[in-house]
């Protein structure tokens, strides 16, 4: 079910040209805002057109080219009603917009029904951690940069920042909510169509702020349950000798920062890699999750994402091959 990275997974009707555009939205948290966006845009464009036409006609109507100083100034009557009429029209438009704004604010404040689940999302420099805890802590699991949700059901998102401030934004599903260290902000989202919805960090957070994307993947409820069940599993034991060797390399080289559940690797600095191969991208949306990209990334992530906090992995080629083989088992 791996779909092409940027647009192929777009929901039906979504403009494949603009995966981050928000003039078409796909859920009740965003839809009323989209209506508001169109409404205020139309008012705004109308105002610009009217004033531009007024200025242009005003200039061209009686414009002259002669020496300025030669033209005798006059007292000029009757300008004040421009201000009166202009203000009256402005007030009507503003008042209407304010009422609409407050209405939308109330409308999208909380979901209509009880949320299906709550996801704890933490912004890191420069990736997203997502923990699905639910009521039973033993069923909790953590993943990164890809958030699966069931279609048609509201999902709560609890946001915080691990280091600096980040901002959570899935344009087609929900506006921005900041992920601030020391605070927990709450957002919610709901996708009415299955598909892949792209998001990106929108609070400047350092060198690789540009490469801090995430994907929300809305699956039919059964598929979502299957995905969650699979994610809950620890990593499968490697079978082939090369993979076993790879696991050892992983625990030694990568385990201080990364977790693979079911192994001694339990680092919490970088993303949980227990089911790495189930994700469609690496480096927080930077590269497609292909074997080639993955091995390039492991060898020298700095070349691909300058400033990233992951150091190059300095191991012999045979170990690198083993590591790669092991990572491929993390499905």
């Amino acid at each position, binding site marked *: 079910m791996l779909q092409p990275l940027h*647009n192929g997974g777009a929901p039906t009707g979504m403009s494949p*040209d*603009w995966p*981050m*555009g928000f003039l078409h939205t796909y859920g009740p948290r965003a839809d009323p*805002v989209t209506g*508001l966006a169109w409404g205020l845009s139309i008012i*705004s*464009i109308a*105002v*610009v057109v009217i*004033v531009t036409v*007024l*200025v242009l006609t*005003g*200039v061209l*109507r*009686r*414009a002259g*080219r002669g020496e*300025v*100083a*030669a*033209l005798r*100034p*006059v*007292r*000029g*009557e009757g*300008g*004040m009603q*421009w*201000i009166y*009429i*202009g*203000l009256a029209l*402005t007030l009507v438009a*503003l008042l209407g*917009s*304010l009422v609409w*704004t*407050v209405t*939308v*604010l109330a409308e999208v404040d909380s979901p209509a029904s009880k949320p299906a689940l709550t996801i704890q999302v933490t912004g890191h420099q420069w990736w997203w951690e997502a923990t699905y805890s639910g009521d039973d802590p033993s069923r909790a699991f953590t993943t990164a940069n890809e958030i699966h949700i069931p279609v048609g059901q509201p999902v709560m998102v609890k946001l915080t920042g691990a280091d*600096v*401030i980040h901002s959570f*934004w899935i*344009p087609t599903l929900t*506006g921005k909510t900041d992920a*601030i*260290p*020391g*605070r927990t902000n709450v957002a919610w989202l709901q996708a009415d169509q299955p598909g892949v919805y792209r998001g990106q960090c*929108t*609070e400047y957070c*350092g060198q690789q*702020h*540009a*490469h801090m994307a995430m994907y929300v993947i809305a699956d039919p409820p059964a598929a979502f349950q299957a995905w969650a069940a699979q994610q809950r599993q620890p990593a499968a034991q490697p079978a082939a000798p090369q993979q076993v060797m790879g696991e050892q390399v992983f625990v030694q080289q990568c385990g201080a920062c990364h977790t693979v559940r079911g192994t001694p690797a339990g680092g919490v600095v970088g993303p949980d890699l227990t089911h790495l191969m189930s994700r469609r991208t690496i480096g927080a*949306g930077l590269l497609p999750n292909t074997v080639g990209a993955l091995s390039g990334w492991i060898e020298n992530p700095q070349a691909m994402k300058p400033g990233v906090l992951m150091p190059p992995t300095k191991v012999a080629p045979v170990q690198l091959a083993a590591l790669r083989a092991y990572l491929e088992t993390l499905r």
Partner: protein
Amino acid sequence: MTAWEDSRVPETADLTQDVRDRLKEIWEEKPGLLGWISSVDHKEIGKRYIVTAFALLIVGGIEALIMRLQLAGPERRLLSPEAYDQLFTMHGVTMIFLYASPVLSGFSNYLWPLLLGSRDMAFPRLNALSYWIYLAAAVFLYAGFVVGHGPDDGWFNYVPYASREYNPAFNIDIYALGLILLGISTTVGSANFVVTFLRTRCPGMSINRVPILTWGTLTASVGNILAVPSVSLAFFLLWMDRQFGTHFYDANQGQPLLWQHLFWMFGHPWVYVVVLPAMGMVSDGLPTFCRRPLVGYTPVALATVTTMALGFGVWVHHMFATGLPNLALSFFSGASIAIVIPSAVAVFAWTATIWTGRPRITTPFLFFAGMIVLFVIGGVSGFMTASAPLDWQLTDTYFVVAHLHYVLIGINVFPVVGGLYYWFPKFTGRMLDERLGKWNFWTMFVGFNVAFLPMHLLGVMGMPRRVYTYPQGMGWTATNVVVSLGAVLFAIGVLLLLINVAVSLKRGRIAGDNPWGAPTLEWATTSPPPPYNFAVIPSVASRHPLWEDALGESTARSRIDHGLLLDRGRETIATSPLDAEPNLILEMPADTPAPFLLAVGLTGIFAGAAGHWWWLSGAGGALLVLALLMWFWPRRMHADEPEAEPAHV
């Protein structure tokens, strides 16, 4: 006439060559470098402000062009992320702090005493101090950047990224201290404007007769006095956190959002600080070219003040996504939407002035009229972001980049360039070339819109701000190419302006006193004005002293050629705050290097603090004390002298 407060009653006289010669001797700047450093002439200081601010505008513009080169395609690697981050930070710092406000201070410094019929600002030495500290702060703020450690957290400098943990170099310390230093300049400059407005208008210039530019700058100055302490405090606390381990902004023991509140409590009023005086230029300039007074002087003046007052209640619209409760969001949405009302007053007043006037299409007029359109575009996009739920989508995207550039370039740069075309003859005695001027306007206007109008679309297509690059497949590439091309065209427009200035300085048409047939007092004196501005203090009978015969509003006439004679040393007149009734002769200070030395000493203190070179801070402090002694050393007051010089009468 009111009672004279502890000073002699000045005599009145006709303007004669004899008076001029005497005043020239009293007011003229001394030659040489020391004379140049010591000058406290508002016109000299004003020009220095304008030249420095334009130089920094060009630096900031070059930074922008480099960024546009980087963004002209996806995943380009012309700049490293760190280089890009420093560039966009310095671009913002330069344009917002070192260009936008100082350039207006320059115009106001130059023009105010001329507009108000006075001989200088109320505190000429404070005026010089304000400029020198500004220059020092500009050098200070760039010191890190030129050695490769510029601030890299944006002009907004959010914590915790600005904390020592994530930014261990001295870059942020330089930014913090540099901005506190600049805040001192802004504060003393603002205090000077406020007192000048209240006390040194010429007789008869009651507050309902002052040009709108002075309303704009007065309002901005009061705004500064209230807003700057917030940002100075914010940066001081940050410096304490970074250097002395306090926890004001710490996520665990402090509060990162405190920074945002303090910063935007300053930051939003600052937006009005950098546009209101520029709007004033348009309000004063348009009538000259429409050959009629401004429609709605009183509503426009009131709207200016109202904008600033409301401007203090909208800062949270920069923080709509920070998770504040709905009630707060509704309030600040409402306040931000309400601020459209005074802006609309200005727009309709300008449009009505054009419609009911007989516009003469000159270059300054084109810039002023073009500004109205850009103002409205920047205004409506601001109105859209004022709507909290919509802002959740728009904030931190290129939509906001478009918005803020329509505000800052549209409402600041366009009026400023228009103002330069308008007042250049007064500054230099020569006109800027009109033909080149028209080319200049259209290149800048078209270039600007090609560069920034599509950015709205980029925002709607979801492109975030402050990204050093962007991936393919987002649909952003073509639009970014257009934006970059527009930026180049805009830069060519600015280049045409520079060429025009360079050529016209030498070969421009000689202007004469009042080349535009304008109504206000600055055009009543020569171009450029003499060091003392007016040989006798004018007295004013209406808002349009030079148009009184044409308008025929009343029989009262302003007097330029006959007025108070103040020629016993550097003197000007003080008047009552509302009605401008003269009541005191002000003894004005002579030229002195004290402000320059004080600024150097102060900079030494700050540089020492930045580098932990405490000896330097100590030396700076000593110099500062010395400069203060020099500054406050008692002068022999002319009023105390025996009346031994009756010959002048």
